[in-house]
């Protein structure tokens, strides 16, 4: 990004190719509408391009980029009066106590990988927004808990808890 800031357009190409899929899927998992996802995806990159001149290294570029995406999503939800704030509230902690012990439940080998993947994607879509965000950031951007916290503007503990809940739900869903 520093190269791009200094006028190297090829550096942007590289950044784009590296992150396009992850960012696109990140917004797609949230809005679940390809047309809206495309619009938001464009906006994220537009914002990045516009912020070129003032870019300074404050975090890993991936974190910075997903932070832009997160902010754009929040703006989108605000604009469309979606009650995302409620869904971003902290989750029910007692859920974890009722989770089955997955060690006793090996994955069903009879299901082929594709069906399992489809099942997982459906479960991801059913996750509460903050948990889904944490999980997708981990998977798509390879972020650590700290980086997820930075990108989403929450504390490390909150990010960790969201990720943990997300994984627990997904495991439970896959075992069902």
């Amino acid at each position, binding site marked *: 990004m520093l190269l*791009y800031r200094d006028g190297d357009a090829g550096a942007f190409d590289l950044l*784009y190719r590296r992150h396009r*899929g992850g960012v696109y899927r990140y917004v797609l998992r949230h809005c679940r509408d390809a047309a809206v996802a495309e619009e938001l995806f464009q906006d994220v*990159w537009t914002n990045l*391009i516009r912020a070129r001149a003032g870019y300074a290294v404050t975090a890993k570029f991936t974190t910075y980029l997903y932070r832009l995406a997160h902010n754009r999503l929040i703006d989108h939800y605000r604009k469309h009066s979606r009650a995302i704030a409620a869904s971003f509230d902290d989750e029910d902690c007692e859920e974890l106590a009722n989770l089955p012990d997955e060690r006793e439940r090996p994955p069903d080998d009879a299901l082929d990988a594709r069906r*399992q993947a489809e099942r997982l994607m459906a479960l991801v879509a059913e996750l509460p927004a903050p948990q889904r965000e944490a999980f997708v950031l981990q998977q798509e951007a390879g972020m650590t808990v700290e980086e997820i916290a930075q990108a989403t503007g929450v504390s490390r503990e909150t990010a960790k808890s969201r990720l943990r809940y997300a994984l627990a739900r997904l495991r439970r869903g896959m075992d069902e």
Partner: protein
Amino acid sequence: MTLNEQGQSGQAAPEEREAELARLYRAGSVEEPPAHLEAAILAAARREVGAAPRSPALQAEDRVVSSLGAPARSTLRASGSGAPRLRLGPTLRACRLPLSIAAVIVLSASLVMLMSEEGGDRVAAVGPAAPLADRAPPQPPAAVAMSPGSRDQPGGQAVAQAPEVPAAPTPRAAAPPARAGASREEEAPAPGRTAVPFFGPGNERREADDAPGRSTAAEAKLEAAPIARADRRSEARPATGEAQPLPRSAEAPVEAPRARSKAASLSAERAPPVEPQKSVLLRELEREPPEKWRRRIEELREQGEQALADEVLAEFKRRFPDQPSLSPAR
């Protein structure tokens, strides 16, 4: 907690399950952004830095190089040989600066010529009537007293101003205040970067949603453009001395002037009154950190200046896209 207990008693199983989930997620998560978005975004990025788009040949070479794999690419980079792109790189890089300078010079010259041409039109239209009198015979008083509406009748032709009535306003001078508003808005768009939309109609819609003032400016531009063209046309024609001072458009239909003046007055009414305040504020905040911007926006909201606060908020989002966004004013 259950997970903690699991983590202590059996570390391997949850990690394996997590790896399995990651593997399944990767298998199921295959969506890619459409190609047309890619082209638009990359073009915008190049425009932003002023670089020329890569030729198809270079893009094909790029694909070849990218298909070689990381070790081969690094070897090529290190040796400076192999793919043609790598050989041409330094040459292109060396040409980039002179080409950029040449492009800037050509653009500047074009801009100056355009401005002088349009500026000349304005001077000719607004200036005193004496020079025009050389070209046109004296006008009867009835011609001067003609209503502004009749000026734009079809068939109206050349510019002519009676020397006996120098105080009679020219159409430019007598134009409704909306005209002045329109020109102000033409100048209003801020820094070039933000004023250049590069995506499709969808983005224009969003831009219009986000900043109502911009749509007004766009309308004003649409109104102003034909007027300016018509002015140039009328200047180009010889003066015939007809009783119609400065017709705006000889080809314009009868309804056009009325619609134009109505639209102009509408755009003047819709012109945001916060513009001067906004520019002063933005100048104040130019080099301030995001915290200062937030405080200022909050202050504005407390003072009840919601419109101005929203304007500043929009600018804040544009300048600091990575900062946590403030909620818009309710």
